[in-house]
C-alpha cells in the first residue's frame, strides 16, 4: 500500500534538461495524494562517471544522500531517474553485504550510513505501492488517437539481483501502468534495446544509429509515440531525433514523452503543468483529449452499430450446433 | 465445600471401584496423608482442607484395577497428560473433582511460626489459623501457598466424573504463570549460571523429586542409577548433580504438568521446577502446547510437523 509520504530525490537532470519529468511526476503524485519530500542539501548521486572511476567513492556519493534520508527517518527513497536509482541500489547492495566495504565508504562520509534506506524507482512506487486500481480510478480523459510504445531503457530492471524489480528481460510494469491510465499500448519488442546512453558525446553517430533502430521499431509496432522513464533515453530519442534523421537518412517525427506526462494528460492536467512544451518533437497532434464519458458514449454507439450483424451471426451458429 | 459432600461421593462410587484414593489426617495437625479406601467406614476418615497438597493422581499408573481418585484442578492435569500418553485407561478411573482455592505450603507455615510444634490448625475461608505453644497466628492462604497456587489457571479439574462443589474460574492473569521464569530470564547469563549452580550444588541426590513426580514412570529403571546405559555416576560432584537435573528436565520436556510435587518434596528447597517451567514456556511459544490441558493433544517431543512455523534455521 502506498505510504502518504515518500523521500524524493529528483537528481540533476530533473533540475535541467528533464525538468518536465520532475514537473509531471510531482503533478500526478499530488493527484494521487502522495506527498514528495526532498532531502535538503542533497548532492550528486555519482551516476555512471563515478563508478567507472572508483567504486568506494561512487558509493560514498550515493550514501551521503541516503544518510540525509535516514535523518528524515524515512526508510524508502524514490527517484525517477534510473541512473540515480542504480547508484543508490548498488551502494546499498554492496555496503549491506560487505562489512569492510561499508566501513571504507563510511570513512569518506561525515556521518556513517547504516543501510536503513530502500531505494525504489518512481515507476516501481506507482506500479507496486500505489497500484493499478488507484491509477485507473483517477483517469478523467482518454486520448483515442494515441498509440504508445513503452521504452524502459536498459538499467530500470537490471542487473536483476540488485534491481529486483519486474522481469529483467521483458518488463511489463510501464505497459500495465499506461493501460491502467486508459492509454493504448503497443507490443514493443525493443522496449529494452540500448539507446546509446552516454555515448552521445564521444560517439554521436553510434547513438544515432542505435536510437534510430529504436525509433524505427516503434513505428513498425504501429506506435505514434514513445513513452520513456529515463532522462538520457528521452534526450537520445527526442533531442537527437534530427541528428538521427541526418545520420541514417530517415525522417522520423515521433514524439518521445515521459510516462508521467501521459498519465498527467489522462488525469486532465494542463499541458503547461506537465511541461509538454519542453519536448522537442511536439506531441500536440496525437494527444487530442476527450472526456471519459464522451469516450464511453462513442464506444456504446460503435457497439450498437455492430449489434445487427452479431445477432445474425449468432442465429446461424445456433443451427449448425444441434 | 464441606468434606461431607466428598464423603458422600466416595461412598457412592466405592461399590464399583477397587479403592478410592483420598486424603486423611497426618501424623500432626499440619500434615495430611493419602488414604486408600476399600470399605465405607474408612470413608469417614477423609479430610479436605488446604493442607491436601499431595497429587494423588501420581498413584494411578501403578493401579492394576479400576480406582477412584480425588483430584484438585492441578492434579487433574496429570490425568489428562496420562491420557495423552496412554499411561492410564480412562475407563479404569473414576475422577472425583474438587474445585480448589489454593493449598498451603507446610514449609512456609513452619518457617512463619519459627518451627514451633503445632497444636492445632483451623481454616476459615481464605486464611489458616495455627495454634502453637506461644499463641495463635493467622495467615492468609495467599501468603503461605506454594508458587503454583499464586498463578493457578485451573482451580476446577479439567476432567472429572463427579464434582464436589460449584466449578470456579481462575482469577489469576495468564502471564503470572511464568512470571518467575521471566524474572530469571531478565538476569544476565552469569547471574543465572551462578544461581542454578548454587542451587543444584545443595542437591543430595535423594531422588525425592523424581519419586514424587507423576510423569516419571520409569520406576526402578531410571538412567540416573543404571549402568546400562551409564549416563551419570553416583559421585556427589556438581557436574553429576547438574546432569541428573538435566535428565529429569529433558525427560519432562513438553510433559510437565506443573503440579509442583518436585518442589514440595525437595528437602533442600531447591527450585527444581524452574527448568521444567522454562521448557514449558518454550513449548507454549514454539508449539502453543500446554501439557495436561487437552486430552486429544499430542506431546510435542513425540510428534512433528514437516514445516515448523516457529522454528527458524539458526544462522552463524
Amino acid at each position: 500500500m502506498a505510504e502518504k509520504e515518500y523521500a524524493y530525490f529528483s537528481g540533476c537532470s530533473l533540475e535541467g534538461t528533464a525538468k518536465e519529468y520532475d514537473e509531471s511526476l510531482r503533478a500526478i503524485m499530488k493527484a494521487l495524494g502522495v506527498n514528495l519530500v526532498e532531502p535538503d542539501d542533497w548532492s550528486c548521486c555519482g551516476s555512471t562517471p563515478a563508478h567507472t572511476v572508483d567504486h568506494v567513492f561512487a558509493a560514498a556519493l550515493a550514501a551521503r544522500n541516503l544518510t540525509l534520508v535516514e535523518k528524515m527517518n524515512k526508510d524508502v527513497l524514490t527517484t525517477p531517474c534510473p541512473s540515480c536509482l542504480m547508484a543508490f541500489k548498488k551502494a546499498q547492495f554492496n555496503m549491506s553485504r560487505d562489512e569492510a566495504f561499508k566501513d571504507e565508504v563510511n570513512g569518506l562520509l561525515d556521518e556513517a550510513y547504516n543501510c536503513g534506506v530502500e531505494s525504489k524507482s518512481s515507476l516501481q512506487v506507482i506500479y507496486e505501492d500505489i497500484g493499478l486500481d488507484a491509477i485507473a480510478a483517477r483517469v478523467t480523459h482518454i486520448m483515442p488517437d494515441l498509440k504508445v510504445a513503452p521504452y524502459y531503457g536498459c538499467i530500470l530492471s537490471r542487473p536483476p539481483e540488485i534491481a529486483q524489480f519486474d522481469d529483467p528481460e521483458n518488463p511489463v510494469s510501464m505497459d500495465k501502468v499506461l493501460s491502467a491510465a486508459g492509454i493504448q499500448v503497443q507490443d514493443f519488442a525493443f522496449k529494452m534495446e540500448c539507446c546509446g546512453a552516454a555515448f552521445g558525446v564521444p560517439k554521436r553517430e553510434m547513438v544515432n544509429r542505435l536510437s534510430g533502430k529504436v525509433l524505427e521499431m516503434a513505428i513498425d509496432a504501429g506506435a505514434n509515440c514513445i513513452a520513456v522513464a529515463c532522462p538520457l533515453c528521452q534526450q537520445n530519442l527526442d533531442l537527437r531525433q534530427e541528428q538521427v534523421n541526418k545520420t541514417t537518412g530517415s525522417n522520423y517525427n515521433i514524439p518521445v514523452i515521459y510516462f508521467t506526462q501521459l498519465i498527467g494528460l489522462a488525469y486532465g492536467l494542463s499541458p503547461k503543468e506537465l511541461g509538454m512544451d519542453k519536448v522537442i518533437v511536439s506531441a500536440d497532434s496525437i494527444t487530442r483529449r476527450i472526456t471519459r464519458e464522451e469516450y464511453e458514449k462513442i464506444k456504446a454507439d460503435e457497439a450498437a452499430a455492430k449489434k445487427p450483424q452479431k445477432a445474425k451471426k449468432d442465429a446461424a451458429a445456433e443451427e449448425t450446433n444441434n | 465445600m464441606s468434606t461431607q459432600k466428598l464423603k458422600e461421593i466416595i461412598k457412592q462410587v466405592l461399590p464399583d471401584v477397587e479403592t478410592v484414593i483420598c486424603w486423611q489426617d497426618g501424623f500432626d495437625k499440619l500434615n495430611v496423608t493419602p488414604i486408600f479406601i476399600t470399605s465405607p467406614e474408612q470413608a469417614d476418615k477423609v479430610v479436605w482442607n488446604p493442607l491436601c497438597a499431595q497429587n494423588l493422581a501420581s498413584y494411578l499408573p501403578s493401579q492394576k484395577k479400576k480406582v477412584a481418585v480425588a483430584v484438585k484442578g492441578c492434579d487433574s492435569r496429570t490425568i489428562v497428560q496420562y491420557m495423552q500418553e496412554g499411561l492410564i485407561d480412562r475407563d479404569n478411573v473414576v475422577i472425583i473433582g474438587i474445585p480448589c482455592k489454593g493449598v498451603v505450603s507446610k514449609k512456609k507455615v513452619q518457617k512463619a511460626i519459627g518451627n514451633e510444634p503445632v497444636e492445632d490448625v483451623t481454616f476459615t475461608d481464605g486464611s489458616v489459623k495455627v495454634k502453637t505453644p506461644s499463641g495463635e497466628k493467622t495467615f492468609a492462604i495467599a501468603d503461605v501457598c506454594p508458587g503454583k497456587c499464586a498463578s493457578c489457571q485451573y482451580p476446577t479439574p479439567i476432567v472429572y466424573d463427579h464434582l464436589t462443589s460449584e466449578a470456579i474460574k481462575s482469577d489469576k492473569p495468564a502471564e503470572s504463570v511464568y512470571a518467575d521464569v521471566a524474572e530469571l530470564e531478565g538476569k544476565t547469563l552469569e547471574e543465572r549460571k551462578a544461581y542454578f549452580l548454587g542451587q543444584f550444588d545443595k542437591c543430595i541426590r535423594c531422588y525425592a523429586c523424581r519419586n514424587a513426580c507423576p510423569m516419571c514412570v520409569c520406576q526402578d529403571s531410571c538412567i540416573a542409577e543404571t549402568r546400562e546405559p551409564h549416563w551419570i555416576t553416583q559421585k556427589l560432584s556438581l557436574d553429576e548433580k547438574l546432569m541428573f537435573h538435566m535428565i529429569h528436565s529433558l525427560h519432562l520436556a513438553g510433559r510437565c504438568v506443573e503440579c509442583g510435587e518436585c518442589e514440595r518434596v525437595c528437602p533442600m528447597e531447591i527450585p527444581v521446577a524452574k527448568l521444567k517451567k522454562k521448557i514449558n514456556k518454550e513449548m507454549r511459544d514454539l508449539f502453543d502446547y500446554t501439557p495436561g490441558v487437552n486430552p486429544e493433544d499430542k506431546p510435542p517431543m513425540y510428534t512433528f510437523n514437516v514445516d515448523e512455523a516457529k522454528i527458524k534455521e539458526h544462522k552463524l
Partner: protein
Amino acid sequence: MRVGVFICHCGSNIAGTVDVAKVAEEARKMPGVAYATAYMYTCSEPGQKEITDAIERDKLDRIVVAACSPRMHENTFRRTIMKAGLNRYFFEQANIREHVSWIGLDKELNTQKAIEEVRMAVAKVMKNKPLFSSSFKINKRVLVIGGGVAGMQAALDCADGGLEVVMVEKSPSIGGMMARLDKTFPTVDCSICILGPKMVDVAQHDLIKLHAYSEIAEIKGYVGNYQIKIKKKPPYVDWTKCTGCGLCMEKCPTKNAYDHFNFGAAPTRAINIPFPQAIPKKATIDPNHCRQFVKGKCGVCAKVCPTGAINYEMQDEFITEEVGAIITATGYGLMDIERLTEYGGGRYPDVITGIQYERFLNASGPTSGHIIRPSDHEEPKTIVFVACAGSRDKSLGVPYCSNFCCMYIAKQAILTKDHIPDSQSYVFYMDVRSPGKGYDEFTRRAQEEYGAKYIRGRVSRIYPKGKKMVVKGADTLLGTQVEIEADLVVLGTAVVSAPGAAQMAEKLHISYDTFGFYVESHPKLRPVETNTSGVFLAGACQGPKDIPASVGQGSAAAAKVLSLFSKDMLESDPAIAQVNQNTCVGCLKCLKTCPFQAIVEDILRSGKKVAKVIETVCAGCGVCTSTCPCGAIQLQHFTDNQLLAEVNAICQK
C-alpha cells in the same frame, strides 16, 4: 580386551600432514590397546594381511583402523577381520584423512586431532558387542517406475533373467521421450522403428505386468520386502473393452485439448490415443477439456464407441504390489519456454522448442512430417537453432550442460535439409559437445554435407519484424554482431528434472540434488545404486543423458537387481534396535516415534506391557533410543554407552 590400532599413511594423503608414527606411538599408550602400528596402504592386500597376521600373533580381539572415511572402506575392513575370525562389529574406523589430513593446515594440530580421533575410536570399539545378522526371505519381484527406454530395458533384462516385473508408467502409453522422436542421432535411424518392437516385447512378456496411466501412491517396507501402493488413474475408458480403433478420437467435438504427447505443438481431441504405436493402444479422456466433464453434457464418444468402452464414472483405483527391489527410471523434463523471456519464449508462436520441432518432423506427428511455421502454417526457408537455451545459465538456475541438445540440433539441421532442400539452417552454439562414438563426425556432416551454418555465439534477443523473426546475436569468431531474419526459431531448451521428481524421491527415501536429479550412491563407482539399499536408478532421472547411456544404465540396474536376488535369503543389517524387556516400562514412546512402525506392543507372561522390535523392519535410525526415557531400547552398534564412550574420550576436564 586387546585392541589393535592400524594408522594408515594412505601414501602421502595422510602421512603428508599427519605424523603417523607419533599417532601410533600415542595409540600404544591408550588403555586397552595391545598393538599399534602405522602402515603405508592399510586397505591394500598386504595391508589387510598385516591386520590378520597381527590378530593371530597378538591375540587381538578388537581392531581400529585410522585411515579414510568409514563410508569408503568400513565394509572392506569388516570383511578383513571376519577372515581372521573376529565378529565384524569388533571394528571401528577413525577418519583421519577427509576429516583431518586433507583439511588441516597445521601438522601439529592435525596430529593432535588424529590422536584424539583414534582415542575416540578405541573408546567406542571397547564398548562394541558382537552382532549377528539374521536372514529373511526376499520377494523376487522388481518394480520399474517409468516406461521410457531406460525403464523398458531394465524391465526386459530383469524379465529375461526370470524375474517378475511390475512396471508403472504415468502417461497412458509407455515409450517415454524416445517415442516422441522422429530420428535418433548419430545414425539417423527412425526412433519408433527401434523402440516399437521393444515396447511390444514389454507388452507381450509374460513376466512383465504393466500398469499404464498409473502413479506410485506410497512405498512401505525395505529391501526384499516392499509394499507398493499404486494409484491407477481413471482413463474414463474401460481398457478391457477398448480395441484402440480411434473412432472416438475422430468424432470428439473438442478440437483444442492440450496435447501432452506433442508438448502442445498442436491441439488434439479431448479423447485420444497418443500415437499410433502406443502401448497399450487404448484411448484416454482428458477431463480438463472433455465437454462431458467441463460442461456436463456431450457423450459423443460414448455414442460412437463400437464396444461401449466409455465410462465417465470411473474413479481412482488403488492396488498394492509386493516387490523386493525398485528401479527408478522416471526420466527428465524440459525447461518451460516462458522462462526464456529474451527469446520471446511463449510470446511469439514461431519460437518453438526442439521437441515441438521434432514432432513437426515426425511423420505421425501433428503435421505428418511437414515443417510449418505455427503462425501461418507456411513452410519456413530460414530456420535458426539456438543451442544452450536455458542450459549452462546460472541466472536461470541451470548451470549444467544438458548433454544431448548439440547432438539433436545437428540431427534436426540435417533432417531440415532433407525435408526442405532449399532451406538454410543456422545454429548458434557456445561449444558443440559431441563426445560419443561417431558423434563429432555427425555434427561435421551437418555443417559440411548439409550446409548448416554454425555461428559461435550467444543469441541476445529475438524479436518479430513483419512476418520474420529477427535473431540478434554475436559471432565471436568473426567478432561481429549478427542479425538473421528467420522464418522459424528452434530453442534447444534445458533439460530439467521430471515434474514431481522431488515427491517421488521422498516416497523412495532417496536424496535428490538441488536440481531435482536423484543422487547416486557414488558418482564413479556406483552410478546406478542409491544410498537406500534396494532402490536403483536408470536413465535421465539421475542426470541428463542420451539414449545409449540410458539403455546402458537400464541394463546395469537390471544386473544389480539380478545379483541382489541371486541369493534366496537376504542378510539383515544387525545394527538395529533391541529392547531390554526387563528395564522397559511399557510407556511405548518408542512405538509412537518409530518412522518405520517397526516397534509393536508385547505382553509378557507376567502381564507386563513392553515394546518389541520387528527385526526385519527396523532400519536402524535410532530415534527410539533417543526417545526412550529409561534407555531400555538401544540401537545396536550406536548404543548410548558407545556414543558416551566417544564423548567421554574427548571431553575430559
